[in-house]
């Protein structure tokens, strides 16, 4: 029996050795590795364009949750060069978690407005998305304030995704920053009372449920409008998109007067083995051609001034007047916002 075991052990050891040999040697100089919570299909065209231009190969790891934990655990041996997320809060978590490093780049600083990047160069916004109102297309409604969502006249007519989703906690955090926690709680209770169905599903479900007669209005992100309204005639998505019109809400608050936006953004990883390539990639992503692709292929609002919107987006949403509240200020209130969602039982 002993022989059989030692034979098995030898085989296992040999297999392990063979596997080790197969490990690629130190990443070549013409590579860059991106860890992202963004869906790869959305950024793949951008990354392909970068590779075509720079001859630098891009490796991607799409991580859903736990990006921070993974990079932390990988430590100084981590192959990650660029960390890319949606939602400012997620990005700032990475910075606070100590897995990023500041970089200096005139190209980045000149392309991105100061309120959309870290002052020390530790994080950068790459694209913008606003939280807007989807309304049944025949509804007589010209303007809207986020506060109106709690108005009893909308009872049983509001659809929205889970309150705990970062898109919503971001908005609630912004409201806390504007009006304080007590007022925001009252507002959230009002919105909860107005819900037509459970706070669940995705942003596009708002449009679909408006078509399905479940609700009349709801909050969702801008780029889905482009996706739906630009879909082929006859597809489901196009029908949902055609059922709604978009209104850009503002805060009632005087100092605001703008629409709540969130970002997708990126940082350079603290132990990036290809730091120079990482910076090159970021600089490419805010260059004019790449920002054009963000607008045309993803229906997002570019961060760079002077880049044209996608025609469908331009027609159904148009330029944004952004709430001037700094993203860092909003991110500060995010945990408070999440606790508030629990407290009022918004997702219950």
């Amino acid at each position, binding site marked *: *029996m*002993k022989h059989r*075991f030692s034979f098995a052990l030898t085989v296992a050891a040999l297999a392990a050795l063979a*596997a*080790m040999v*197969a*490990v*690629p*040697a*130190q*990443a070549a100089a013409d590579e860059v*590795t991106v860890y992202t919570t963004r*869906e790869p*299909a*959305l950024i793949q065209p951008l990354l392909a364009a970068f590779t075509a231009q720079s001859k630098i190969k891009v*490796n*991607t*790891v*799409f*991580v*859903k*949750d*736990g990006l*921070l*934990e*993974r990079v932390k*655990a*990988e*430590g100084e*041996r981590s*192959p990650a060069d660029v960390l890319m997320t949606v939602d400012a809060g997620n990005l700032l*978590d990475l910075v606070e978690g100590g897995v990023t490093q500041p970089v200096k780049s005139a190209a980045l600083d000149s392309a991105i407005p100061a309120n959309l990047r870290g002052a020390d160069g530790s994080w950068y916004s790459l694209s913008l998305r606003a939280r807007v109102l989807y309304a049944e297309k025949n509804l007589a409604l010209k303007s809207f304030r986020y506060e109106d969502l709690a108005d009893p006249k909308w009872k049983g007519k509001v659809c929205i995704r*889970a309150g705990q989703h*970062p898109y919503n*906690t971001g908005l609630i955090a912004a409201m806390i920053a504007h009006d304080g926690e007590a007022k925001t709680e009252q507002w959230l209770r009002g919105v909860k009372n107005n819900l037509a*169905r*459970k*706070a*669940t599903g*995705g*942003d*596009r479900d708002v449009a*679909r*449920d408006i*078509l*399905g*007669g*479940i609700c009349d209005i709801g909050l969702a992100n801008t780029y*889905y409008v482009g*996706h739906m309204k630009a879909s082929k005639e006859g597809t*489901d998505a196009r*029908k949902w998109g055609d059922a709604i019109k978009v209104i850009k809400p503002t805060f009632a608050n005087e100092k605001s007067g703008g629409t709540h936006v969130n970002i997708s953004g990126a940082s350079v990883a603290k132990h990036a083995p290809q730091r120079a390539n990482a910076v090159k990639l970021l600089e490419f992503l805010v260059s004019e051609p790449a920002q054009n692709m963000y607008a045309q292929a993803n229906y997002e609002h570019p961060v760079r001034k002077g880049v044209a919107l996608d025609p469908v987006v331009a027609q159904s949403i148009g330029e944004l007047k952004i709430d001037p509240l700094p993203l860092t200020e909003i991110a500060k209130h*995010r*945990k408070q916002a*999440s*606790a508030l969602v*629990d407290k009022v*039982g918004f*997702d*219950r």
Partner: protein
Amino acid sequence: MTGRSAFRRRPVGALWQGTSVLIALGVLAPVVSLIWLALGADWAHWTHLVQYVLPDAALNTALLMAGVGVLTLVIGTGCAWLVSAHDFPGRKVLHWALLLPLAMPAYIVAFAYLDLLHPIGPVQGALRWMLGYSSPREWRLPDLRSMGGAVFVLGFVLYPYVYMTARAMFMTQPAHLMEAARMLGESRWGAFRRVALPMARPALAVGLSLALLETLNDIGASEFLGVNTLTVAVYTTWITRTDLAGAAQIACSMLLVVVALVWMERHARRHQRYGSAQRMRAIQPERLHGVKAWLAALFTTVPVLIGFAAPAAYLCWESYKRLSQGQGVSTGLWMSLGNTLTLALGVTVVTVIAGLIVAWATRNSVSTRAPSRWQARVATLGYAIPGTVLAIGLLTPALAMDAGIARLLHLPGLPLMALGVVLVVACCIRFLVIPVGGIESGLQRIPATLEQASRLLGETAFGTLLRVHLPLLRPAIATSALLVFVDAMKELPATLLLRPANFDTLATWLYAEAARGTYEEGAVAALLIVVAGLLPVVLLARTQLQPGAQPLENHPE
């Protein structure tokens, strides 16, 4: 010959035990790392959790598990008994078709039903047309996004776990016991209730616990249908509040409850033994006639229709629409299929071998005083922790070991992570309970006298395993292997966190489509998951449901 003396005399036995202990420690590593995390944080947020989060989440979890438990038990046991002890129209097809929902990931079924049952979907559209309404604003059904909807979806997807184990048990139950009960005056129902059902209890417990742990673990379907369970609470605490320690605390408390439940079930039947050395003669199905036959056919057809046929037809239709619009199957998708199959195969081989080692080392057929059986119980833990939380727990120990090995061999980066070894280990930890449970209950049914005879005739413990038990365990091993394969193919959360660069599986592909809110674009990927899952399920049906699969058929007289 007690286990202890054998243990002392034979180094092979020690090696065997040692390996088993090592495997158990591997499973424990992420758990310990989670407990470490949980203890390292403050408990201040528990006032908030206890006040606003946990009561509702615990109630939801209890309701969901109770609902799914009842549904899977009734459907699984009912169908298994109907096709085992009765003959009716369609039985020949149904007895294997009842396994088909195993190929369906719960989150895909949830997506499918939300579309099918949406006010603007085909079902409500047809109903409105029949009732003469023109718009959903005039009339519509209640929303699927509710507790009832989640019980419906999960119950009809997960019942095969119970069906499969119950069916295997009923098939191999000795007919003479049932006949004795009938001769003693029991009705057919009474004999089922008082003989067949209690005999099937270990199998039902295994099946039911798999279904319930799947329910507890589910994040896709229940979150999508708006049911906030404890698992969802763990997520929210971790992701939204960036409070990993708090999430670990909730996860550890959930784990305690699971361990307590499993222990209670085992404790309740600790003195029962289910082995029988009698030569088996399987129950002969009784032919049903008239209304009874049609009711039996209906009862067994509905689960297949709801759990498989309707969502599969929906996926086919959606895929057809995509493909006819000129969206081909990309090379990336084919590569994902390859990755999925490779990963599932690797996970299956590793998990089944590990499971066999643990189950054999902790068996109690001869060595009743064997060192201890804690390894086998530990194996349950992996399945009880939500996939992402398990993966998070594994990150620190696995990557520390990875870095250590790399340093030792002067390799760059993190080789085990880059090769996907960490991912395979995570899946193995997650699914270990399947082969351990399956092989254990298989071992329980092999009479201890066989092992005693073999050992008395001079065979070693290992030789006894090879020459006596392995042939008898073949069906149990095949079943476990196929189940692990199907589960590994559907695995999503651990893969999302631990995969190497540029590595996609069908599940992550589909998730990616769902993540950008275009899940209907993922129809092709979803269909591929189902199609690739069908083969093992059909094989499963063959190994499980063939008369030749009876574990004791070849048992020498």
